[in-house]
């Protein structure tokens, strides 16, 4: 069996999901989601709380079965041999799910025992991961003794112990300090360079922008945008964002201007309006409000989240 991930990208996608549907407790949580992840690529799965990210991820890694739709790994329907598919997966869940009865090293060894064919040379692999993830010093400690950043490292290391080809990271840096987040980003970058396909969910927009080669944006269980971070922002928001203080006398006129052009409500944050506009709309805005003071900046994923949180926005 080939265990070392290949850096040569296969012709087709590593993972492909089509029209995934899932109801939980009678509620439609995932409604026809499509997504694709290639080897050596990070796919960012974004969306506000309740968008269906984690449920989609759980279907992808076999934790939940889909009510409808298909998941393919290298072109083969995974439901035909789920066990074989799961041998190729590494999963780092949002919550720490260490085995508290074991030390850091034993956690990796025990996890290796949950895969067949057995990972070759487990001891060497564990040493290698402890070294790479800077966990060697803590190898004999219980996981609860580790800081948040090192716990995340252990979670990712455990997901890699059997040399998977596809890695799922569900909000891998939530709750970490900036230094620990950057360390996780470096690890993710390194894994991508080795040819792993990585599906990542996150709430941090800078993380998604820095790490993702492609984004799939979910809202209310549906894909609302897909593509590179830049193209998703362009499609969803436009090319520019006008930022202005919302305390001026012209604000009703600005709101009316937005309304007449079908742009909906402004994205308001702490008394500041953020108006995503296309080039033409920006020119129109400048003509309509020549005396208004405002700043123009490129859109980012925070704008996208704000827009998704306000479904009535245009």
């Amino acid at each position: 069996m080939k265990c070392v991930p290949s850096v040569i990208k296969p012709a087709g996608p590593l993972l492909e999901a089509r029209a995934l549907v899932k109801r939980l407790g009678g509620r439609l949580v995932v409604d026809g989601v499509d997504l694709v992840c290639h080897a050596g690529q990070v796919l960012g799965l974004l969306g506000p709380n309740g968008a269906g990210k984690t449920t989609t991820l759980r279907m992808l890694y076999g934790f939940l079965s889909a009510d409808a739709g298909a998941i393919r790994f290298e072109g083969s329907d995974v439901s035909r041999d789920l066990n074989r598919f799961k041998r190729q997966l590494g999963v780092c869940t949002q919550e720490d799910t260490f085995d508290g009865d074991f030390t850091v090293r034993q956690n990796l060894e025990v996890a290796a025992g949950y895969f067949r064919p057995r990972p070759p040379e487990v001891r060497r692999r564990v040493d290698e991961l402890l070294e790479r993830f800077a966990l060697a010093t803590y190898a004999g400690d219980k996981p609860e003794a580790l800081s948040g950043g090192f716990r995340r490292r252990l979670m990712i290391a455990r997901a890699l112990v059997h040399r998977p080809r596809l890695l799922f990271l569900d909000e891998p840096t939530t709750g970490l300090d900036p230094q620990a987040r950057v360390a996780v980003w470096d690890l993710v970058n390194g894994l991508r360079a080795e040819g792993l396909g990585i599906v990542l969910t996150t709430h941090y927009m800078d993380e998604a922008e820095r790490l993702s080669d492609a984004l799939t944006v979910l809202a209310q269980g549906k894909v609302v945008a897909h593509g590179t971070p830049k193209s998703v922002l362009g499609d969803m928001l436009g090319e520019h964002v006008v930022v202005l203080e919302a305390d001026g006398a012209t604000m009703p006129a600005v709101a009316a201007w937005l309304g007449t052009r079908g742009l909906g409500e402004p994205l308001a944050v702490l008394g500041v309006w953020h108006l995503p506009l296309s080039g033409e709309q920006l020119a129109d805005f400048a003509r309509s409000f020549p005396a208004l003071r405002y700043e123009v900046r490129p859109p980012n994923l925070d704008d996208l989240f704000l827009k998704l949180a306000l479904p009535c926005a245009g």
Partner: protein
Amino acid sequence: MRGLTAALEWQSRAVVGRHLRVYLKNWHTSFLPPVLEPITLLLAFGLGLGAYMSSGIEWNGRLVGYINFVAPGMLAYATFMTAIFQSLFGAFIRMRYQRTWEGQLTTQIELRHVVWGEILWAGLLTTSYVAIVSLVLSGCQALGVLQLRLEYLPLVIPIVFVAACAFAALGLCFTALVPTIDHMNLPIFLVVLPVGFVSATYFPLGHPVLAAISTANPLYHLAEGLRGLLLGDRAGYHLAGLAGLLAVMLVILVPLDMRLLRKRVLGD
């Protein structure tokens, strides 16, 4: 059917292997209860309470020493309690607090293997517990305290294993249903203790209503079956009754465990 045959798949053995590894880490403390419990019980019930019944106790129309009556009952009760408590508290802690199951489920382990792993582990742990208790009973017999047919003790082991698996399947149902660990009092006081009392483990059931109820109690048949083997009386009827009840329990409860735990753990 797939749920039942999962007991034989490697993933279920891997889960058992994980539990065994934890147990062996703590073997020095794990060995204490099965050694001390029978000694304490034999002293309290057999020698203490038995002293008030110097002529013995009537069982199946003949008089037997109370300590000899209690010893097989003790094996049955230990089987029941060890399996139930392992599948109630041990499994609940792994599921709810340690999140061990969730970690396992991100690998090639499926929920059906987690369930079978818990059941088989409870069976194995209980069997080892009863084996240690049996050694203590053999020691007591060597000291002249007991008069049991010890040559039948090896037969006790496989019976205990299957019974413990069925009791663990019952315990896992409650694990799947109780919202918090504090609610464990409900199954313990409403089910576990009544089943334990109406079982003829520590005293014969003289009242006709209790005797009638006990015929549907697998622990009663286990206690009487082991007693029949170790004291030399009819064991076939009780062991056949036990086999039937355990088979029904396993066939019904294991798929039920899987369904309830699927909802609880996977939210599906």
